[in-house]
Each structure stands twice: as structure tokens, then as C-alpha cells.
């Protein structure tokens, strides 16, 4: 440290924006998400773990069901959604867990930022990791099970389900971040809440693969969209209220 440069430092006025509003909120959401992604690009400890787990799970399921089911499309919907849920848990608990382990969460909380902005920043980075997972898993499933999941309504349902999963998962990850048993608590809390998403996602995927008309499957898409909307709004309000307890 140098005394001369210190004098110059303290003599300069510092201006902070205090306008608030949605633009300021979004700037902070973006800052948190960008920071998480940048740190992940260096550390490779969240997305890469999820992807490797997901790919291994596809191979293991492929070997387990090989020659034992008459049609692979009978098991593919369940396998896809189980992999997304289980691989997702691995990453979700690190989103706040890493901040707690390194005590950087305190640094975030010292800043003049709404807890919901931190939440949505984490949600954005978790969503990105989950989509990356699916980007790797779907082609491998195509090869392993000879089942094409790259169909518009399957991808739409998967995207809606992933959004809902990231919303709820990020929320519970924040809630359990300070718990010593967060690795086990997160799935115990999270997976029961995800039952509607799991059921809707599996039913929609199975219906499309079975060649049923889309008009009969729209209700599953509606369930996923309603789930996403409810948790998006609820998280926005609840996170700020309960943050002291986190």
C-alpha cells in the first residue's frame, strides 16, 4: 500500500446512483449472474459436475434398460426428467452453498441490494447451467435410446419445467444455505414440491413420443406455465420478506 496514492484516493468524491427502480434492480441481477458465470468458467465446479453426472446417468439408464423394455420411448420421458432433477440438485445447492462456504454471501449482503435481486441473479445462472446440462444430455439420449427428443413441444415443456425447477431450487438453495446438512436437506425439501412439474413434464414428453395430438396435451403445458408464474411471483415477494432468516 502507498501513502501518496491513499491521499489521492480519499480526496476524490465517489458518486453512487440512488435512483433505484427496475433498471437498477436489473443491473444488479445481471451483475450477480455474470459474476457467477465468470467464476464458474474459472472453477468449473457446478455446470461441469451436473453435465458429467447427467451423461453418466444416461449411459447407466441406457445399459439398465437395454433389451428389457419393448420400446425405449416407454422409459425415455421418465429418464429425461429424473436426470434433470437429480443432476440439477448437484448444481443448485452450490449456488448459495459456495457463497456460504467462502463467506462471500456476507459481502453480497453488505451491498445496497435487494435480496430478490441476488435471488434472480442466482436463478439466471442456475437456469443457464440447467439448459447447458440439457444441451449435452439430449443428443446422448438420442444416440443411447434412438429417440428424438428434439421436437418443439417436448423442448417447450422441458424449458418451462426447467424454469420452474430453477425457480424453486434456487429458493430452497437460499433457504438451506446456512444449514450444515444442506446437501441432504435441499433434495428432501425440493423434490416433493417438484412433483407437479415432474408429472406434467413426463406426461407431456410421453404423449408427444407416443404421437398423441398436441391439442390433448396442452393442459400439461398450461400446468407448467402456471407453476412457473406462481413461483416467479411468490419468490419475488417472499425472498425479501424471509431473507433475515437466511
Amino acid at each position, binding site marked *: 500500500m502507498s501513502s501518496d496514492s491513499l491521499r489521492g484516493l480519499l480526496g476524490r468524491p465517489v458518486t453512487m*446512483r440512488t435512483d433505484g427502480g427496475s433498471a437498477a434492480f436489473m443491473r*444488479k441481477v445481471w451483475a450477480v449472474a455474470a459474476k457467477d458465470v465468470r467464476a464458474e468458467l474459472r472453477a468449473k465446479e457446478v455446470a461441469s459436475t451436473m453435465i458429467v453426472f447427467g451423461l453418466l446417468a444416461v449411459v447407466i439408464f441406457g445399459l439398465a434398460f437395454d433389451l428389457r423394455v419393448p420400446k425405449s420411448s416407454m422409459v425415455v420421458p421418465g429418464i429425461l426428467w429424473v436426470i434433470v432433477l437429480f443432476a440439477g440438485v448437484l448444481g443448485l445447492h452450490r449456488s448459495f452453498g459456495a457463497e456460504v462456504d467462502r463467506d462471500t454471501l456476507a459481502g453480497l449482503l453488505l451491498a445496497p441490494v435487494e435480496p430478490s435481486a441476488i435471488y434472480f441473479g442466482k436463478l439466471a445462472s442456475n437456469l443457464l447451467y440447467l439448459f447447458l446440462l440439457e444441451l449435452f444430455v439430449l443428443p446422448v439420449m438420442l444416440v443411447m435410446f434412438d429417440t428424438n427428443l428434439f421436437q418443439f413441444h417436448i423442448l417447450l415443456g422441458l424449458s418451462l419445467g426447467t424454469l420452474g425447477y430453477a425457480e424453486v431450487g434456487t429458493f430452497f438453495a437460499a433457504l438451506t444455505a446456512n444449514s450444515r446438512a444442506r446437501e441432504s436437506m435441499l433434495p428432501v425439501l425440493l423434490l416433493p414440491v417438484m412433483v407437479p412439474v415432474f408429472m406434467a413434464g413426463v406426461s407431456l414428453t410421453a404423449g408427444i413420443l407416443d404421437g398423441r395430438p398436441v391439442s390433448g396435451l396442452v393442459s400439461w403445458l398450461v400446468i407448467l406455465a402456471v407453476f412457473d408464474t406462481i413461483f416467479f411471483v411468490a419468490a419475488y415477494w417472499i425472498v425479501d420478506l424471509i431473507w433475515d432468516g437466511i
Partner: protein
Amino acid sequence: MASENGSAETIVRVHNVAQRYGRKPVLRDVSFQVNAGEVAALLGANGAGKTTLLRILAGLDNPERGEVWLGNVPLAAAGHEIRRYVGLVSHRPLVYDNLNGLENLRFFARMYDLVEPEPRIEAVLTAMDLWRRRYDPVRTYSRGMIQRLAIGRSILHDPPVLLLDEPDTGLDQESVAVLTDLIAQLRQGGRAVLVTTHNWERAERWADRVYHLVDGTIEDGDEVLKQR
């Protein structure tokens, strides 16, 4: 910073603050104040409650009882905007070891809504003697460098209240001398500084007023210093 009648304005006021962890009381009716342009030192042994008190002042923990005021604003009723006025150097550096020094300060500049942050970041990194290492990941920094980055993070937004929890940890003699200079300049600039330390000599050198935290209660450290 002085009030109209010439007396220094009280920036930090702690009144009957109590805190416990489980059944163990950590702070018992702690009361003190720090004025603008004043440096107060909080001395105490390990486990005396210094860090707990600083976390409460920074708004990271809520006291079980009692009140904390920053200026005219009670901390319990203040929103997150009050955090603009506080800087904290904690036991842990509160920086991201996978990011480099520059990225860390850019991130915190965004969180504090700094206008034109780049010149400020450069000035802070230069003052902390980290400008040459700005592109290196923090995990490659020495302990002293990380501590300097933590100090830089705490003064990035130039807060009127600075809480320094054993800021000399890991610093070499030269850096401690500059830290002493920084504390003196913060005082001169009208900031209220509360610094915790185990070191009586440094407390005497740094502070205008010394408080001694013993078993969760505050004693007048100036009296203890006179007796030493």
C-alpha cells in the same frame, strides 16, 4: 464533520445491545458511540464479542435486544439503502477467489451503483498496491494481498462509517504503516471508524477512544490504557 454547536456529530450509536448464541450471552447491554472524524478501537480477547458487535453494526446480524443508530437512522428500521454508508473489513476477505482483483472490485462497484467506477477502481487498486496484479486470480494472492484487497473493497464506495475487524491480520510492517496512515486520513476526512484489535499499542496509536470488551460488556479502555 461537526454539528452547528461545534460538537462532533455522532455517526454510530449503540444502545444496550445484547446478543446470545444459543444460551451463551455474547454481548450484554453494550452501549457506546463513535463520532464523525473519530477513530474508536474495540479491544478484547478472542471470543469477547468484537466480531459479533461489528456484524450487528454492519447489518449482517440482528441484536437480540437494544438499538443501533447510524446517523439519525435506526438500523432495525432502515432498508438496504443504509448499507451504502457502511464499509466492513471482516475476518474473512469477502472477495471471490476465482475472480481477479479487478473483476472483484468491478462486481462490487456494480452492487454499490458507482457512477464511472473505473477510475475509482484503479485508484483503489493502486493505493492497495495491487494494480500490477489486477488480472491475477485472487486465489494466487498472498494472505496480505487478499487482506489489502478486502480493505480496498471496503473503501471502494467511500462510506462514512468504516468497520475494521482486525484489519492488520496478515499485513507486513510496511502495509501496517500505510493502514495506520489510511485510518488517520479517514479520521481527517470526517469518517467514523471502529477498529477491533488485540494489540493495545496499535489501538493506542490508531484510536481517539478505546473501548475494552470483556465478557460481553464494554469497559472504558482509556482507563485501562492509563493503568498499563
